[in-house]
């Protein structure tokens, strides 16, 4: 009889919770392979959750990215097993995954534009509530790579805050610093990036 298999699980979900926990532990211990292995698992889970949200969510709601990331964490990792550090690794990878997804999306939209031509147009208030334009995203991505050369942690904070939508407290916890530090670092990163993107002039 033909099996109607909607619950044919994909590898990530099949992975027992233990696997992710294991990998996180290994990452903590400095295993360079672990993050790479974690990445696809987390990536897939984020997407799965997003799709569920898509099905249920009414149009016009801003996506609660932090919630998304947290949910993925709860789903994949065993909170009791993972001390804060493990979670920090998770968040790092999740934030990277979110960034990657967005950049892929922007690229797919065909919005490749080198340089800052578009930046000459002013950024008006009205756009504040909307999602960034595709070409802005790509430029941001590139700029982030350059920022990484300057200061890794700043790049990290941008990923946490902008892409994963984590709160200052959560970021502080993940990085093991104070919230004040997070605020200051964020201001620096933001200033640096805006300077890169918009030419430092009005």
């Amino acid at each position, binding site marked *: 009889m*033909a*099996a*109607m*298999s*909607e*619950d*044919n699980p*994909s590898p*990530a979900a099949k992975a027992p919770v233990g696997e992710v926990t294991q990998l996180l532990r290994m990452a903590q211990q400095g295993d360079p392979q672990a993050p790479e292995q974690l990445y*696809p698992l987390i*990536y*897939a889970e*984020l*997407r*799965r959750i*997003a*799709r569920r*949200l*898509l*099905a249920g969510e009414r149009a016009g709601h*801003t*996506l609660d*990215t932090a919630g*998304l990331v947290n949910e993925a964490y709860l789903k994949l990792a065993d909170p009791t097993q993972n001390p804060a550090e493990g979670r920090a690794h998770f968040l790092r990878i999740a934030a990277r995954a*979110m960034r990657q997804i*967005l950049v*892929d*999306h922007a690229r797919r939209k065909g919005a490749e534009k080198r340089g800052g031509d578009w930046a000459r147009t002013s*950024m008006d*208030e009205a*756009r*504040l*509530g*909307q*999602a*960034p334009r595709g070409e*802005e*995203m790509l430029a*941001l991505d590139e700029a982030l790579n350059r920022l990484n050369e*300057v*200061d890794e942690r700043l790049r990290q904070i*941008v990923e946490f805050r*902008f*892409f994963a*939508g984590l709160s200052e407290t959560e970021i502080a916890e993940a990085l093991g610093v104070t919230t004040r530090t997070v605020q*200051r670092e964020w*201001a*620096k990163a*933001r*200033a*640096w*990036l*805006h*300077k*890169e*993107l*918009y030419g*430092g*002039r*009005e």
Partner: protein
Amino acid sequence: MDWGRVWELFDAALEKPDAERAGWLAEACGADAELRAEVEGLLAGHDRPGVLDQHAITDPGVLAAPRSSGSPSGAVGPYKIVREIGRGGMGVVYLAEDPRQGRRAAIKLLAPHLSTDPQARRRLLAEARAASRLDHPNICEILEVSETDDGLLYLAMPFYEGETVAQRMTDGPLPLEQALRIAMQAAAGLGRAHAAGVVHRDIKPSNLMLAEDGSVKILDFGVAKMHGASLSAPGVRVGTLAYMAPEQLLGEAVSAAADLWALGVTLYEMTAGRRPFQGDYEPAIMYEILNEEPPPTRSIRPELPAGLDRLLGALLEKNAARRLSSAAELCEELEALERGEEIALGPGGPQNLPHPLTTFLGREREIEQLERILDRARLATITGPAGAGKTRLAIEAARRLTARFPSGVWFVSLEAAQGAAQAAALLARALGLEPSPERQVFDQIEDALRAKKTLLVLDNCECILECVPRLARLLEACPELKVLATSRAPLRIAGERELNAPPLEVPSPEAGLADLERNQAVALFLDRARAGLPNFELTAANAASIAELCRRLDGLPLAIELAAARTKLFSPKALLDRLGQRLDLLASPGADRPERHQTLRKAVEWSHELLNPTERKLFRRMSVFRGGCEIECIQAVCGELPEAELLDALDALLQHNLARRTDDGQGESRFDMLETIRELAAERLLANEEADRVRQAHAEHYLTRAETAAAQMTGALQAEALDRFETEIRNCEAAFDWAMERGDAERALRFGLALWRFWLVRGRIEEGSRRLGAALQLAERTVETRLIAKALHAKATLDQNLGDNARATAALERSLALWRELGDDRGLASSLLNQAWVFLELSRLDEAAALSREALTLLERLGDERTQAVAWNNLGWAAAYRGRPRAAFECFDKGLTLRRGSGDRRGEGFALACMAWTELMQGRFAQAHRLMDQATRRLVRIGDRVLSGFALVGRAMILLDEGRLGEAEEIAEKALREWERGGNRSGEAWTRLLQGEIAVERGEPGAAIRTLESARDVWRAIGGAWGDAGTSAALARALAACGRPADARRELAASLRTRLRLDDRRGLAECLEILSGLESAARPGEARHWAALAATLRADCESPRPPRRGDGPILEQAAAAAPPDSAGLRREIERAITGLG
């Protein structure tokens, strides 16, 4: 760059107040210009708003979207990809290995756009499930439907070694036997699918796989309909296009018949070696499919048998209702062809018989009896209890009789008709008539069926017992009509012949195995059991149980089906044990019903008990739907259930025959229940005390749908919105009724407001008005004033269209008062315009114009262009009625521009038709026709009876003035039918007036008088003075031609009086011309005087005289002079009136 220093300075600078910042920085950096520039840049960046102030992702869709294309890296789900096999518009197909089962599979990876949209996904999953249950050797199995990590959906199918029919054909046509055999197998597969309510929609040679073992597998079941959207990709279409049925191309309802068309095309191609419909580019192919007949295959390959072309003719019939649509029948014909026998196909008439859900067994004797009965009698009624299979019997018998009824065989299910009005509407709808006020429905039906050899199959006549006398009259009025009815009890009409549908013959206890195999009840059991277990056999071991089961179930087909559906789980012996216990129980409540009914009831109850709690819940709740529903609606009513569970439960109900699925023709599945079962489910719902809650959820859901759809019924998407709504209307009305029952006036009014336009446009005006009226009465003070005002306005519009101007005015006065009270300008403007329209009908032209201008002022302030157009329209009519066509044209034109701007197709059409009329009045026929063409194009699509009628009348008027009388008459007839269907009285009156004028032109004054008098009756009934005057004038001409001058003069005087009052100069000119004609013999001087005055008025209006019979030289030579002033004109006309005595 020393970033440490940079950041230090940055941090510190931010601490400084704005004014000091620059100075402080300059100092701190000293000579290091580079450092300073860097920090300044950062500070500027800090101040500037930018991308990092936005949310990165606002739309989950971005996150959820799968990666773009590109072959998956080696695996799709658990399958390991070996290589790509093919590509299509829907996705890529790979050969893969299933490591779990150690076998090969074909994986179809669907294109991303099909995977992201949640609605598409849900539908795809539902359809794929349905397809995966089609267990048949000629249907390609679907092993699983799942998704990759990336969220791309894929289907796994067994991999068949072999080639597709398309590949097989690359070397040329196939040998006849091979082609026939392929077609037969494909037809067998299709038959199974169609029986389960699944239409493939994309049958073509590349979807027919020839497996190694020689069997044909149909591919892509269940998903073909998904790529409806992607068919717009260029290039993809052409290949599929060649196989599409005409109704598919036109975007109309698609049924099983479309699959048979496609199979026909395939068969043609296989045998002839080329496609029947060819072309290098899309439009060419489409044209051929829609309009051309393909050359007979014998003209391409003479050795092919004649029967083949006849068969292809039946399959490639462009009208789906006339096409061969039963796959089973096709199989038979193909077999006959193979054996070299004659094809039994006759030209059947059009029919709409539903496709059987299951194969029909037994009952040959009864069918023959019915055929004989209908030879002699006019009405045959199949009686019997519920579940006796009366409907199936009727359908089968009707199918066999189609050849005898060339004008058609029409099936109407009166199953859930609530009341005589609905039943009448269903009947009219099945015949393709738009039902109008109830009193006219049967008249319409009579007209439609008179002198036509038709068979009506009326299913479940219990509901129309009230209309039985009318049905009897119908039979009398239409001598060629025959009726086959099913009912629980006979209808008792004279000449009725009753056939009691016995349950199936049950086997006697002594019957041996051989006898059992021949027994009808047992055969039915076996057939149904095999739907779940294909290899189920009647054996010595289970024979006794099966036989006993059939006996205990009294041979009732439905009961047997319910039991047989469980054979997957229970052996016949187990079934007998359990069910037997059930049947032994004392009768359930309602024991006054006859025993047989009890059996069915118990069978349903028993089946119900085998359901798990979720399934039971679904079963109960589905009872609230009338006329079926879509899956979304079921979800709305069972909200708390997760989707997967719900689908599972639905599956279960379908499998156990407690619910059924149909394809609604647009690619959506609809689910419903047999009425008998629905009633029982409803009882359960009540017993569970959930009824109110569920009906509430039902009502809320449909209210939302109705309100959403209503918003679109006025905009650019009107036509689609109206079509979609048809299927939902019964549910909406049921919800409306429920609201009324509970005294929920607010909801009832909201429904009324959502539905009224639909009722108006589809000609169910009286019903609509009545419903709104009832809701309004209920409302009193408890409801929001605005709602009441709107509802009054809506009701007034409906009443107007019925020609009940008095009621309309009453409602409008109330609504105007309420709007003023609320200070709502928008509402006020709408109602003012409505009232203005009523005044136009009553020929109170000045008042109409005044109100319209008042509304226009309000609307201009509100900036509401769409409604401004309506005001301009009114002003146009006022001018036109006064015979000032140029002014009227300008008003209509203004309206047209505004309507175009707001995408109002209906309004556009209307405006264009009005403009055509004014061109006509100015004697510009070519322009009038052109404008009318444009109008017609827009109006026909919407299916708006009222406006199509209007467009037709307009056309007829142009033709009359041109002197093309035959054509005018033809079109006037059509117009009349539209009005009758739509129930619009003034349109009717107008058309009759026109017909009268045509008759006069043709020299048939006697007939003209009759027609005109009936027109006048209607005008007077609705209070339309303008029309009344026009009719009087025409009557005057007719009477004069009949040699009744005194009567003619009287009528003419009446007409002059009214037209003077209305200040209708054009009308006055017409009257004067008639007067001139009356005087021409006896008093030529007077005749010339009147003719000159007429010519003067006409010149003033710029409305030339159309040539008329009997015009004579006086009129022709009359010269226009300077027009008199109003007082002077008045004197002249009064003199004329006096002169007429």
